[in-house]
């Protein structure tokens, strides 16, 4: 029962939480956009931008937190572009989102080549180090998993709480959710749908970029091509899995990450000798699809998701 051994090992859960962290940032960002009624398919490209921008800022001598801020700002810039095209101009959110992903990805690689024309292997940076929270990190299993992580992971968990509180406990969150449910209601109450949606897309995109930056600044310590590797698309599914609720989305991210961490470890057991490794690589995705099918049965989609709002048209 090697699998049981893996499941009760602290290193497995530490890895799962680490793998989940970038997904939590980006999925929260996507959730904020979608709750306001905008599907942001630029997520994959924005994560690439964030990964590069944060890493580059640190490589050029900035502090780690400055790097996070730069990543956030770069994401918000692309959010501004996405929002301008989809909100006031009301263009197709699918086309704009995919366009942003292509643009952001290509532009990043171009900037990488401009900045580092000669290198064959990308330079490493001094990344975030795990910070053990006193006392809490001594708890068996839970301690190493939750309380011996890097500061960015702690930030991800804190943000889940912040987003939940803002969405459900503040007038701002009320307006944001209403913009995704019935923008006419927001308009009729004297608020600007455009401002709310633009703000949501920008903040959401900023969070996605921080998710990307986690990869370079807290996991791989360097930037290379294809490093985001579909994580953005996974986050789109995680939001659906979480029924557009931050807490459930966090749960989904951890679940997916646990599958991912598990398959790597199972490959090294006796099971791995008999089964082609591609099957293991597929496993998290197959299990995610199954979980998605079960969880999204009763999901409440924001009613105005992907519906552009044009003032004065009804």
């Amino acid at each position, binding site marked *: 029962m090697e699998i049981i051994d893996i499941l009760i090992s602290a290193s497995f859960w530490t890895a799962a939480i680490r793998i989940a962290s970038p997904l939590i940032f980006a999925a929260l960002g996507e959730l904020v956009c979608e709750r306001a009624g905008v599907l942001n398919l630029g997520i994959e490209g924005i994560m690439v931008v964030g990964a590069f921008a944060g890493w580059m800022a640190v490589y050029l001598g900035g502090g780690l937190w400055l790097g996070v801020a730069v990543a956030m700002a770069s994401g918000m810039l692309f959010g501004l572009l996405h929002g301008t095209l989809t909100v006031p101009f009301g263009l197709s959110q699918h086309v704009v989102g995919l366009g942003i992903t292509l643009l952001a990805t290509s532009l990043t690689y171009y900037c990488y080549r401009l900045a580092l024309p000669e290198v064959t292997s990308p330079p490493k940076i001094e990344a975030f180090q795990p910070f053990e929270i006193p006392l809490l990190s001594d708890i068996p299993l839970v301690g190493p998993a939750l309380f011996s992580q890097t500061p960015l992971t702690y930030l991800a968990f804190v943000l889940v709480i912040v987003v939940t509180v803002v969405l459900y406990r503040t007038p701002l969150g009320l307006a944001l959710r209403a913009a995704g449910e019935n923008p*006419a209601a927001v308009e009729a109450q004297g*608020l600007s749908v455009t401002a709310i949606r633009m703000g949501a897309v920008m903040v959401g995109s900023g969070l996605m970029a921080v998710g990307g930056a986690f990869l370079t600044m807290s996991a791989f310590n360097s930037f290379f091509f294809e490093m985001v590797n579909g994580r953005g698309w996974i986050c789109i599914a995680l939001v659906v899995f979480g029924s557009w609720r931050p807490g459930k989305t966090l749960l989904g991210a951890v679940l997916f990450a646990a599958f991912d961490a598990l398959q790597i470890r199972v490959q090294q057991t006796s099971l791995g000798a008999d089964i082609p490794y591609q099957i293991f690589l597929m496993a998290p995705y197959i299990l995610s699809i199954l979980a998605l099918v079960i969880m999204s049965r009763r999901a409440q989609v924001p009613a105005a998701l992907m519906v552009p709002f044009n003032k004065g048209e009804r």
Partner: protein
Amino acid sequence: MTKTDEAQVVLRLSSITKRFGKLTANDAISFDLAKGEVIALLGENGAGKTTLMNILFGHYTADEGEVEVFGQRLPPSQPKAALQAGVGMVHQHFTLADNMTVLENIVLGTEPLWRMGFGRSAARRRILALVEDYGLRVDPDATVGSLTVGERQRVEILKALYRDARILILDEPTAVLTPQETEDLFATMRKAVAHGLSVIFISHKLHEVTAISSRVVVLRHGKLVAEARTADLDRHQLAQMMVGAEVPPPAVREAAPGEVLVALEGVSTPDRGAAPGLKSANMALRGGQIIGMAGVSGNGQAALADLIGGLIAPASGRLRLKDGVPSDWSPRAALAAGIARIPEDRHKTGTIADFDLTENAVLELYAKPPFSRRGWMDWGAARDFTQKVIERYDVRCPGAETRIRLLSGGNMQKLILGRVLETAPDVVLANQPVRGLDIGALTYVHEQLLAARDRGAAVLLISEDLDEITALSDVIHVISEGRLSPAFGRGELTTAELGVWMAGHGFEGETHAA
């Protein structure tokens, strides 16, 4: 013209003009609203009432003219400014977020966005006080998605009152209410006036206008054609002012009932969300008759229409056609049985907006000769058919290759009517056939339905307009919460008696007397 006392004026519209392309929706409209007054804004569909109110509230920008509230000019195109000036609007299509509670919908936008938390308990106290004061029964903690239409309307009114509205605009508020709910609404309006509010009440139902308003402003084709004290006018004069000419009721010839073409025998269908399905419904559609289905919208009309049109099959009971009970009930089977439908929503289910007239004309017939043979379309035949429909049914359009999106509602409806009637169907399912049409198109549609009846077809007329039902129908059923009343003959019940049935009284299983 009535001169309003200057000091009492709370709202003044000065020569408001709004054009949409070639159409002038509002043509230099001016009037005043005084404190504690109810003005009825009367006019047909398309007369420009809603446009005018949307300008007042800042949803639209007027091309010319201005709006003054309490002596202050309102900046155009800013709902926020209108709200702050004390204008509250209850839209015809509710502006509520279904996934939030009543309280959240009311509080939305009333508190600064950038602060932690909102005063739920204080808000709840205020809402409950308003509920008490104005007789607007609704639970602040209920989710809006679970409310009835009448309750949602009360939430909309509460939204306005919560913001201390001094001027209340109600855009066709009674269209979705039962006669009893309408009475409750009127009671609320009287309380509002007693509190010193002013109300603009939009309607095209004359008896409501005479019941509640102190003054009436009549719009026709975007122009203000009359303004008078309600007490000085009778309904007949109002009707004339509204349509601009004496409207003769359609000449009804004696019906010659034929055989039963479609019969429902204890049919039930599943509920769909808030919309009830049919509950052991019995009815017979005979050739040579118009069968009117009266009722407040959302009482099972959709289920009935879908059943007859083949979109749903009975869950229990039987649907019997002329030659027996069909084994498989689908839209195709319904078409094959000679049932043609005029759908309730001509935009959503009647036409495809970006297809041209020809494509739309053969939408239900394309699979049959002469329009297609051996899997190939014959567009020549389709165009000939469309041309015939355009000529016979007076569809005003640039040509058969026009995208149907560009046609007015009336002309779109005429094309649907032509497409339906040209095939000489045995049964015509007419669901709200004149909704949103002007008086000319409306009269035309009615005449065509009568002609189909005289030809021997059974016409099922589903309408929320009781006057339309009583004028045309040879047999009337009332539908309420999915239950069908027995069949009543022409003139058997008065409008008031039908209203009692519409409110859900008199059905089997009813314990208290109506």
